[in-house]
């Protein structure tokens, strides 16, 4: 790998100006200095990027040389323009300085430079953090791959001590039971219950023994129920019908004998007429 080509940056000579009250560089000089720094830094990055790989080909080397030459030419131009800009500043400087614009521009350029440097520093810090995080993640994965956490917890964790330290009451108090119950699908829950088995396990004797039947009946309006039943059955009419044609035993006997005689004649006639005896009971 060949050495990166150095960029011919020359120190821009301080323009011998009239003795002024301020001993620092003027705003123009600071601006040119900042611009030269930016160009030099950018050209350095480009050249370093182009020359960094091992597989640098001839075309890349040519581009790097071209960038370096362009940057040098631009800086030489700045150096040549410096006296002219200095004379302009000297001519217009008092007027601008009287307005305070020179100091403002200078401060603005200083702010831009510091912002640039801070941003560059942040990017470097971010890259370093990402590399560190990836390295740590790989280390943790490797460690967990070597450990059997389940066995580790079973062997070394004292569940009772852990549970003793948990305040179940406080946890339950914090739970929103209404919301929890609201999420339950009661229909699915009931579908999963075998009601027959459930009923088989219920002791109906004990259940009914606990029911206060007398108290239950006290709440029933029995006269109203009885009245409703009597109205519906029409008991008086039933009694009337059942007793209206009450016959004595003698009459019943005559009737039954008459019915039997009817059947006998019926059977005889059917036999004579060779008729089926279907209607006879």
């Amino acid at each position, binding site marked *: 790998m060949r050495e990166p080509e150095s960029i011919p940056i020359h120190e821009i000579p301080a323009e011998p100006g009239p003795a002024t009250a301020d001993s620092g560089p003027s705003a123009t000089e600071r601006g040119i200095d900042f611009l030269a720094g930016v160009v030099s830094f950018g050209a350095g990055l480009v050249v370093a990027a182009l020359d960094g790989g091992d597989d640098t080909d001839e075309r890349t080397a040519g581009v790097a040389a071209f960038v370096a030459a362009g940057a040098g030419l631009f800086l030489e131009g700045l150096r040549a323009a410096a006296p002219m800009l200095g004379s302009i500043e000297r001519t217009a400087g008092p007027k601008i300085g009287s307005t305070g614009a020179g100091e403002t521009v200078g401060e603005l350029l200083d702010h831009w430079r510091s912002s640039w440097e801070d941003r560059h520093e942040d990017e470097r810090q971010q890259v370093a953090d990402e590399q560190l995080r990836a390295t740590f993640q790989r280390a943790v994965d490797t460690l967990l791959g070597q450990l059997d956490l389940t066995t580790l917890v079973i062997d070394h964790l004292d569940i009772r001590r852990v549970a003793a330290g948990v305040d179940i009451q406080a946890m339950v108090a914090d739970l929103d039971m209404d919301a929890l119950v609201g999420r339950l699908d009661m229909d699915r829950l009931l579908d999963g219950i075998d009601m027959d088995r459930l009923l088989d396990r219920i002791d109906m004797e004990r259940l009914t023994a606990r029911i206060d039947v007398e108290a239950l009946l006290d709440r029933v309006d029995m006269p109203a129920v009885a009245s409703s039943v009597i109205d519906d059955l029409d008991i008086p009419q039933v009694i009337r019908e059942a007793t209206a044609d009450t016959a004595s035993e003698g009459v019943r006997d005559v*009737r039954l004998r008459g019915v039997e005689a009817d059947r006998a004649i019926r059977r005889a006639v059917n036999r004579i007429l060779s008729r089926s005896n279907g209607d006879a009971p």
Partner: protein
Amino acid sequence: MTTRATGFDTVPKEARPFHGQAAGLVTRTIANVVDVVVVAGLLGACYLGVSGVLFLRRGAGFTFPIVTYRMAYLVGFAGWVIYMTFGWRTNGRTYGDQLLGLRVRKTDGEDVGGMRALIRALLCGIAPLLLAWCAISKDQRSVQDLIVGTHVIYDWGGSRRRRVSDDAVRVGVDVAPPVPDEPDDGHAEPLPRVDGER
């Protein structure tokens, strides 16, 4: 509260097997004989009544009125028709039917109307022997029944009412024959009434 519909069967227990079936020749003949006796008795009572009125009017010159055969037949026929029509129209049966447990119905089961009862009574009075056809008839209907559209069924009283559905409860009400009062009943202390009043 909902009450399940209940059907009551007040037909006497012995008659339930044949209740509503067509009656045969024997019972109907006996019923007619009873009715003839009843009509004869009524006419005899009427004869005695008329004779009593005549006796009060004539005094010593009273003699029993002489009734010719023609008059007797006409009066007997009229009495028979009136008696039968009245019985079938009002109750569906005469006293003879009542005694033998019979009832005259239209073939659709409805009560017999006045005109139908009158025609049937006239036919029975004119040709009572046509009753014998019920022994031969497959439906046990006499000629009179066939003409006026009636039939005679066994009906010992009671009814099978309000049997709304198949699962309705059928309650049989058995009425025991009347028991004569015990002689001691008159001395027994009456039971207190519900409200305490004696």
